[in-house]
């Protein structure tokens, strides 16, 4: 269990547009030795896994390419322009698409295969799909199902685990007001990230290693995944108020005093944001899973503690050895999603034993089954147990 720090990042002033509040995160100097590029994949639908046995099929609007090592280091000084795809598709699938287009093929949904979620495309270049690591980490949580074949679980559960497991997410353009907020957002000099609030709930934190990367990736935020909580918030909330600390001008009689008051006001906003608004993200404990190591950087995905009393964020990060995040992207879980994760964690911790789990949740069997029902997991149980539950049996 570790916690998440936004080391090396400073909070800027929030910009509010409708129900969306965007707080820029600034770096004094870029992370050296790492760059991120947007990469349009050239297709509409991605199949992860080999073509014969796809692991899953997803709508993937874009992917990121991380470059590290000497090539990226020179770019970090802003003197070198990368020859990385620059938004234009490249590689075998793009060639095929171009060939088809030249042959006058009718427009169609383009399909392309990715063998893995994270794939090295060159010696110091890594392609990955944003938030897919994090989402997959959440979906595959205790995916295998019970380790011990307790008689209460159905045969399908014992044989195939939790499959199929599904969660909803929404494209950024479907989140009301987000595209407009991104359009009118004024990118600050030195900005390397943004904390995005929808209805004043933290929706996502995005961090990039270099300001140029942020500038390039900013418009792609509308192609990112957002959870159902964000979608719902955006649909129902009113305009976010301008949160600001009052300017303390009592006793001020000259310009120096006024400037001091202004600086105090700005500092108090930064403190408020870092300590209160970002707290749901930074205060929680996370389980980190390293996915890929590239030089002095490590690509991790992290899962929260699934505490139902607070908002939980899943996400992925590229962290340097000294703990400075070069890349970070988070996804907020809705209450229902948190509860599902919480229930699964408790079940796994108790070895999938119903009574033990019920005891750890301070309830009885009926209470546990009720909870599983509301989390949409009742189908994991055997039918006769459910029948007894429906019949009102106190101990099904």
């Amino acid at each position: 269990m570790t916690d998440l720090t936004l080391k090396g990042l400073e909070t800027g002033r929030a910009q509010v547009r409708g129900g969306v509040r965007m707080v820029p995160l600034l770096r004094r100097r870029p992370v050296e030795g790492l760059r991120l590029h947007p990469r349009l994949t050239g297709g509409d639908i991605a199949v992860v896994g080999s073509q014969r046995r796809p692991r899953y099929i997803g709508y993937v609007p874009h992917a990121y390419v991380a470059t590290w090592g000497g090539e990226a280091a020179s770019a970090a000084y802003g003197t070198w322009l990368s020859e990385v795809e620059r938004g234009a598709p490249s590689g075998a699938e793009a060639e095929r698409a171009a060939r088809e287009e030249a042959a006058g093929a009718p427009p169609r949904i383009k399909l392309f295969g990715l063998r893995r979620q994270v794939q090295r495309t060159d010696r110091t270049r890594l392609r990955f799909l944003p938030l897919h690591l994090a989402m997959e980490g959440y979906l595959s949580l205790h995916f295998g199902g019970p380790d011990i074949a307790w008689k209460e679980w159905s045969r399908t559960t014992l044989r195939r685990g939790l499959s199929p497991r599904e969660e909803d997410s929404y494209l950024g353009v479907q989140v009301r007001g987000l595209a407009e907020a991104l359009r009118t957002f004024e990118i600050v000099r030195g900005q390397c990230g943004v904390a995005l609030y929808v209805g004043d709930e933290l929706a996502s934190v995005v961090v990039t290693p270099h300001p140029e990367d942020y500038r390039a990736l900013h418009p792609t935020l509308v192609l990112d995944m957002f959870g159902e909580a964000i979608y719902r918030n955006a649909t129902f909330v009113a305009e976010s108020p301008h949160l600001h600390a009052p300017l303390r001008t009592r006793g001020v009689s000259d310009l120096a005093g006024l400037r001091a008051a202004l600086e105090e006001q700005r500092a108090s906003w930064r403190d408020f944001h870092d300590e209160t608004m970002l707290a749901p993200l930074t205060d929680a404990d996370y389980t980190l899973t390293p996915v890929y190591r590239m030089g002095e950087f490590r690509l991790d995905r992290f899962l929260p503690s699934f505490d139902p009393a607070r908002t939980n964020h899943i996400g992925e990060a590229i962290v340097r050895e000294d703990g400075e995040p070069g890349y970070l992207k988070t996804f907020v879980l809705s209450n229902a999603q948190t509860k599902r994760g919480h229930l699964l964690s408790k079940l796994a911790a108790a070895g999938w034993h119903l009574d033990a789990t019920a005891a750890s949740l301070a309830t009885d069997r009926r209470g546990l089954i009720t909870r599983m029902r509301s989390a949409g997991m009742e189908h994991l149980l055997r039918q006769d147990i459910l029948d007894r539950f429906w019949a009102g049996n106190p101990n099904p």
Partner: protein
Amino acid sequence: MRDTPDGDTYTDLLDCEDVLRFANAAISGTGQREFRTGAAGQRLTLDFLHDYVRVNFRDLYAASLALDVNDHNAARIVHGLLSDPGEPGAAALDRRTEGALVSQRLAHMPPQRVYRLFRRLAAERVNNRRTRTVIARWISRRRDLAFDAVKYRAGLTAAARHAHLRLPGEVSAFCFSPPHRAGSFATPLLESYREAHYTVEAAYELPLSVGEGFAAKHGVPRKEFLSRARASATGGELLRLDRSLRGHGLEGADLRRVGLTRLCSYVLALPVADREERREELTAALRAAARRIAGGQAGTWGPTAAVLDDSYSSFGSPVKRNRPLAVALACHFVLEELSVRYTPHWVSGRRDALTVRPEGATPLAETIMDALEDGPERLVVVSDGHDDAPPVPAALLDAWRTRVDPDRRTAAVHLNPVMDADEMEPARLAGSVPTVGIRDASALPSLVELARFGEGRSGLAELREHLDRRVAAYIADVDEKRTVQEVR
């Protein structure tokens, strides 16, 4: 009803605020898409404001033609005055003054806008005696009606038909007879137009926008056409074609005669590298244009500090690209001429005015502090009024006005080039600093004068007085001209 110390009732103060709101919106709003609101929202707001002020304050509505209301809104005001005769007994200017204001304003408007207004009147069947007189008078004052007949044929035809005019000489035949019956013309321009259908040589004598079509018809290469047609092109057309001219290796537009704000838009459309390369030429042209605006007032202002907004929002919108930034840049050059000691403060912290670009955030409060620390006599803020955290600069300016500078050693004014459709006026910075709309920097000196009414301390009576003075000055020269016209 309680009275203020000046004798104005609170109703008067509110009326004053309404009228100023309209004036500011009519100065900066053009019904086009802005950075934050779409065209529909802008138009809806303008519609409401025009109707409200025309019905309730018809005299002030007409008088606002004498203010620096932009051409779009001036045409709308004229349209409103002509199509709505007004309630009997409502406060209105006497018809002579109103008519003089209308004809004076139309005389200063670009002809294509006037013809568009006439066509709108015709389409809406506004055909009272007054409308016919306005159209007839405007057309009788055109310098070269044959030119108008060629360049604005549809407009002139519609206007003449609508106002029952008999166009003089061959222009009537040109406009109304079918070509085979009209035959050839004695007027050179009309004859060129007829000939241009058959020979390209004649096309070069026509106005550029008309000749262009004939050249394309005859298949003349663009470069050859541009090199010969520049003689007949207007300044505005040349400026618009400048990039095309330079691309073909021809000499670009002459920047010495161009108006300042348009010149600023031109400069901002150039890539930064080009601006660096042509720095001396551009700076000289900008300074000269600013000097023309300042005129006799050059060097009459005390120390002035300006806060100029070059944040990303000053990009405006694709339909009015870089307009807010162009206005800020133009104000920069005008203030440089007006003031004896002038210090610019761009919001981005840039020092060089010529290479500004719309980029970055808006830390207005900090920049205003920087500007105030120069200790100026006058503070001018040119911004769309959207700070990152809007309440902060408002609180800052209020505190400055009440605690640091209560006896008004420094006069402050906020010029806003963008109308906020939701606020129904250009967004304000703070209650203590008056906000005025701006569209063209040439109006800057008179706008700063108008700003004092926005402080909420001078009432309707004073505003009426101010407007009366402006109206009298505005129509003074029209009266002289009228005698000339009547002699002719």
